């Protein structure tokens, strides 16, 4: 069952001050995101991947084509709240998503807007903060937290609405390695333990490797779609559009070009080391 479906979607931003019509940010794009999936969307800046996030919950509406969220057309205003509750979006800059001056009050913001009963909000807030590992900071002021902590609070704020799908638009781009690790851990939990569909937009390929499925955007279109191993196998195509490939893939590819009989789908360090070890031992 697909939770979000893009059908031949085209979108362009309003023309600039001089009235020059801009090129579409998303062009004739079709994609079906399955319930329970952990999907990564890769692409360089300006490839249209962030626009996808905003199209997916009706923040932006397509110029042509349709976006269906759990069967509801995002163009249908009556379903607007339902759609936004089904598909939550977390953005890049954690500072600009936190509304309240106390962590737990911020997490309560979504459910409050939905008109949930106070006792139920309390339960959801506590649970969401526990999932992202920020429960002990519930009475803290957000501006005193680190970037990674703030981003986890922002994620908790979305979880508290109990969405079926969460889209994260480059949530780690502004974080340091430690913050990135913690946020990744929280995101993986959402999918693996809570079964929430996760769409993770990023340009860090090592993070994309964690997903079940990778969609690569280039020039406003869908370029590749497959498992990490399938997608990264085509290292040349990947690098030609300005994206990184895991160093293991590049190294394996170089050795294979020399006729060394490595496997085709090596992604992690351990896999590569094992394979090299096997080859050498085989001698």
């Amino acid at each position, binding site marked *: 069952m697909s939770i979000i479906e893009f059908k031949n979607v085209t979108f362009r931003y309003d023309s600039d001050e001089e009235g020059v019509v801009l090129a579409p940010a998303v062009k004739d794009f079709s994609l079906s995101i399955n319930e329970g999936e952990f999907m990564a969307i890769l692409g360089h800046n300006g490839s249209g991947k962030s626009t996808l996030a905003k199209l997916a919950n009706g923040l932006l509406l397509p110029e042509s084509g349709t976006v269906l969220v759990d069967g509801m057309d995002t163009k249908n205003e009556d379903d607007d709240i339902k759609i*936004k509750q089904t598909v*939550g*979006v977390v953005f890049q800059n954690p500072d600009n998503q*936190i509304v*309240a*001056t106390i962590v737990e009050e911020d997490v309560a913001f979504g*459910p409050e807007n939905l008109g949930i009963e*106070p006792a139920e909000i309390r339960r959801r807030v506590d649970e969401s903060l526990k999932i992202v590992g920020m429960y002990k900071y519930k009475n803290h002021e957000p501006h005193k937290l680190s970037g990674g902590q703030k981003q986890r609070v922002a994620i908790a704020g979305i979880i508290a609405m109990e969405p079926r799908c969460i889209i994260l638009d480059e949530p780690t781009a502004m974080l340091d390695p430690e913050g990135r690790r913690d946020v990744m851990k929280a995101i993986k939990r959402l999918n693996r333990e809570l079964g929430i569909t996760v769409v993770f937009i990023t340009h860090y390929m090592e993070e994309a490797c964690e997903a079940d499925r990778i969609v690569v955007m280039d020039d406003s279109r869908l370029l590749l779609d497959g498992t990490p191993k399938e997608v990264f196998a085509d290292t040349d195509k990947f690098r030609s559009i300005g994206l990184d490939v895991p160093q293991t893939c590049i190294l394996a590819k170089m050795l294979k070009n020399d006729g060394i009989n490595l496997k085709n789908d090596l992604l992690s360090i351990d896999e590569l080391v094992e394979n090299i070890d096997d080859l050498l031992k085989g001698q």
Partner: protein
Amino acid sequence: MIKDITIGQYFPFNSVIHRLDPRTKLLFTIVFIVTVFLANNFVSLFFCMLLSAAVIGLSKIPVKTVMKGLKPILLIIVITSILQIAYVDSGIVLVDEWKIKITSGGILTAVFMTLRISLLIVMSTMLTYTTSPTSLTNGLDRMFAPLKKLGIDFHTVTMIMTIALRFIPTLIEEVDKIMSAQKSRGASFDQGNLMKRAKALIPLFIPLLFNSIRRAYELANAMTCRCYNGGKGKTTMNALKFSLRDYMSILVMAFLIGGIIVLNIFCGEYNAEFTFNLAV
């Protein structure tokens, strides 16, 4: 460190006063202000002082901290006192030399005014000392919710207040960062005459303005994604509920107003000469 600035000067202690419903505290503060203005004699004022002393005591906030709140208005107190002493001409003449004439009436009026202003300030700072900004805006929101029927949407006002409180520290940090960056390119913010200094602020304010617009835009998106629709049908996690404490406080308020009215009638409008004679 700039990050440690506390906004709204809230002191998070666990006291009876802290636990009161913010609406009770708001109402109490308003009633107290009215009462202080109603009080027209020293006895009534003394009554008010006793009450504020009780509130401070119950709040567990050190008296020294409370008194610090008076510092910014010290100058106003001094000026009004001087004016009262100079212009009020009643009661016993104490000094009458050259052009200076000081009367007992002047001194007493000055003392009365000083006490009055101090009481007003102390009790309003007590409100912010014992109520977190969020709970205060929450209280305001609920208190003025009925105004919606009159077409006044107070929710928007409290939402703006909340967001402002949330973003003040973020913006302070940003100002700090932009200033450092421009200083690194040789800008100086503390040299030259007024014109020059004003001009030196352009490299600070333009980026700050642009960044704030960007932030506002992103925040609006994030709020929309979290189903914000102007507060329609919104519930609150920490629902405000009147408890016994709150009803007790309302009783105290009633007694306060009643008491002051009675005292005003009983003691009459304060008469400088009479009071002075009593004191001497």
